[in-house]
């Protein structure tokens, strides 16, 4: 009757190098029996191989996810498989992507660690990204971004700051060109158009060139190339739609306006700037919101990007990025440090989301999932 004996060996075949500890607690059929709990409404089962007591004293009112996750990262760095196993077990039991902030953090980080340890990270990321692309239409994604902006100043803060700086830089100019490399669907610009329209001197002409990076993430020969092509078409549709709306709005505002979209596959540092149609007499601004971090900090790529920008001689470059260094390195203490940083940043993000949205918001779920993929 019980054929689904979860034989560790078959799991091993899929995840070949998972190091099972010597004394396998479940081999003897660990039951769901438990000893009486200590003083909290929290129960654990006996792990004779694992050390102790410190686990039993944490309670659910604190930020338990941070504690457990950091310990897990340390266990990985120390290659302590027994401890790792125990901690992952706890995470697995306690976390949920639908619970409170700690449960969510636990859940996404657990998945990410699992993928990392089974060496399936790349593939899983691709699967997740392609599925979410398939299921999220223009309408839902745009609604999500709009809703997010409605309930939280997370993105608009950056927008307002950038717009302010740009306005200052463009003081007195009559022909303006903004190169926009952002992830926020041009939601930044209507406010700017308004400001331009209400400028005391003559309304300048604005050209906006938006660069949209298609989501291939630089993974060569991926099996999702079919998807990439499909998504390219839909991205183009999206941008066309946005462009139409922008143009309409600009007309309304009485601002002479031209809108260009450039679809760029691959890494941003390879962007061919001559394609950007920059005229001599234009005042140039480069605006990057939430996109530069995708350029990996290797091979001088970032330097290249910056020198490319310099060549254009812009009046101003505005950058909005996450206040975190999310590179987790490869191993050891570097990993732990990077992990910690990751955790810190995402905790803030999740908490902000939790505060801003209603409890049962689908939009927030989308954002969380995107964050989960990033993790």
């Amino acid at each position, binding site marked *: *009757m*019980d*054929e*689904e*004996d*979860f*034989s560790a060996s*078959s*799991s091993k075949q*899929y995840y070949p190098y998972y190091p*099972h500890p010597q004394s*396998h*607690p*479940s*081999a003897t*059929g*660990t*039951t*769901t*029996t*438990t000893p*009486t*709990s200590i*003083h*909290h*409404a*929290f*129960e*654990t*089962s006996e792990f004779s191989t694992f050390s102790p007591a410190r686990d039993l004293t944490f309670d*659910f009112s604190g930020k338990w996810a941070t504690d457990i996750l950091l310990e897990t990262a340390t266990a990985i760095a120390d290659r302590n498989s027994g401890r790792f*196993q*125990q901690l*992952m*077990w*706890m995470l*697995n*039991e*306690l976390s*949920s*992507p*639908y*619970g409170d902030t700690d449960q969510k953090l636990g859940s996404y980080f*657990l*998945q990410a660690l*699992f993928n990392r340890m*089974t060496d*399936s990270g790349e593939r*899983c990321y691709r*699967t*997740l990204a392609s*599925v*979410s692309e398939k299921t999220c239409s223009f309408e839902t994604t745009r609604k999500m971004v709009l809703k997010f902006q409605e309930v939280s100043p997370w993105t608009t803060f950056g927008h307002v700051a950038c717009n302010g700086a740009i306005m200052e830089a463009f003081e007195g100019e009559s022909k303006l060109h903004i190169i926009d490399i952002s992830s926020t669907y041009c939601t930044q610009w209507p406010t700017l158009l308004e400001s331009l329209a209400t400028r005391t001197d003559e309304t300048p002409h604005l050209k906006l060139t938006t660069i949209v990076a298609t989501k291939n993430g630089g993974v060569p020969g991926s099996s999702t190339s079919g998807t990439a092509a499909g998504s390219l078409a839909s991205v183009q549709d999206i941008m066309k739609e946005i462009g139409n709306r922008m143009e309409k709005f600009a007309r309304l505002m009485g601002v002479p306006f031209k809108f260009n979209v450039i679809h760029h596959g691959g890494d941003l540092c390879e962007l061919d700037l001559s394609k950007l149609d920059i005229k001599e007499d234009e005042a140039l601004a480069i605006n990057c919101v939430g996109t530069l971090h995708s350029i990996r900090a290797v091979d001088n790529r970032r330097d290249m990007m910056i020198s490319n920008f310099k060549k254009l001689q812009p009046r101003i470059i505005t950058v909005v990025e996450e206040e975190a260094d999310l590179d987790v390195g490869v191993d050891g203490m570097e990993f732990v440090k990077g992990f910690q940083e990751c955790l810190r940043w995402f905790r803030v993000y999740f908490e902000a989301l939790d505060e801003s949205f*209603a*409890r*049962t*918001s*689908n939009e927030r*779920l989308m954002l969380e*999932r995107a964050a989960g993929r990033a993790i």
Partner: protein
Amino acid sequence: MMKGGFEVVHATLDMIQPHREPIWDFASVGFPTTSVAAAAVSSIPRQNLENRCINLERNELSDWVEQVTKKLIDDLPAQNTDTDDHHSRTLQAPADIPMLCEDSFPPSLLGDFRPRKTVTSSDFDELQWSNVNGGNDRGLSRLDEQGLSLITLLLECAVAISIDNLGEAHRMLLELTQMASPYALSCAERVVAYFAKAMSSRVINSWLGICSPLINYKTVHCAFQAFNNVSPFIKFAHFTSNQAILEAFHRRDRVHIIDLDIMQGLQWPALFHILATRMEGPPHLTMTGMGSSMELLTETGKQLSNFAKRLGMSFEFHPIAKKFGEIDITMVRLRRGETLAIHWLQHSLYDATGPDWKTMRLMEQLGPRIITLVEQDLSHGGSFLDRFVGSLHYYSTMFDSLGAYLAADDPNRHHIEHCLLYREINNILAIGGPARSGEDKMKQWRSELAARNSFVQVPMSSNSMAQAQLILNMFPPAHGYRLVQGDGTLRLGWKDTSLFTASAWTSHISR
């Protein structure tokens, strides 16, 4: 909550004090439920049910589930057929037999409650996904497709897990977890979201090789209470059992109740009140409360003691922070001359009682005058796929019943679904199962009790039935809930599916 609930109950219980000898006078107990059944005819007879199922007022989600699972199970390669004759029955069911699902499920799951019916392709088209306030038609076909593809994917995933293909399962789960949202309008999607999460959990704990649960009892109890407020099932269990216990305690002065998983003791104040004000005067009541944590038990004991004191009833509370199947008879402080009642409201949140055979043995040894048992119509034994299919059906129904009453973005509903129902789903799929716990779980307790010489069934009285009906009347979409009396039991379910069955038993050696 306890106080509030008590107020209402006071009114109802008063009406049905037993004025005559309880039906189940010891001598008459062996009878099949003829006399009771006659009284029950006025309630929903089974024939009506069968007719009713053909019309549109159905549990749409569960129907889909049955349809698809039958096909899937039929398509399964003939593996794992050691002792499981259920499988061979499934493989034999040819497509032309009009009895859908009855054969695909172990009988204990659906019992006699589930009428046979024919599902044709036209029925298929009539099924609607949306459920909020009667549903709306826009986007319906899109929801259909989405829902169908989600459930199909979920089932494929379950099959992968059952044949231990964790890699494939994980891949499918990645998709599922991105596609299904627990906040969706469609109950189907919500159910899929939680099931997918439970299976992810299982994949990970299979990989880790550990499958013990880690439970936050406070959260669970809180969600349980919330559930009690919006859904009649718990109250049904409480009040029908209380009635049976009351009848068993007729004219007994010294009584003892053992509650196998007392939690917060929500059930008891109502009974205390009625005992304290009964005609022959209040008894001396001892209660043995079992549970997981001494801290929580002590708290519950305190509350109950205070309550009893206010009623002027003599009361003792003995907490035992262990599982019933793990203690021996010496730990139960049963005194001579005490009339014993054992109460067990079964749930799937965690293993409350330990090994089944020991639980049974202890019950036999104690020889109670009455055992009140409320079971979920869900089997915890069997293979993963059995449990999966059974629980999918069960929880789809449960989610539907909540969805008919509560809005999609109601945080209370989310709380219940996430902290209570999901806990159960996770426990069944990711933790439980004979292969993992190494124990044989009894498929259905009332069958087991019936099979033993030491116990005899006590039919649920018409007073219990009346109680149940009164409770149903308290809940708005009363037309969705179905109360059925038969075989001496009372069953409460949603639309066509029975979810809880209450029964009572007495021991031959009871005092």
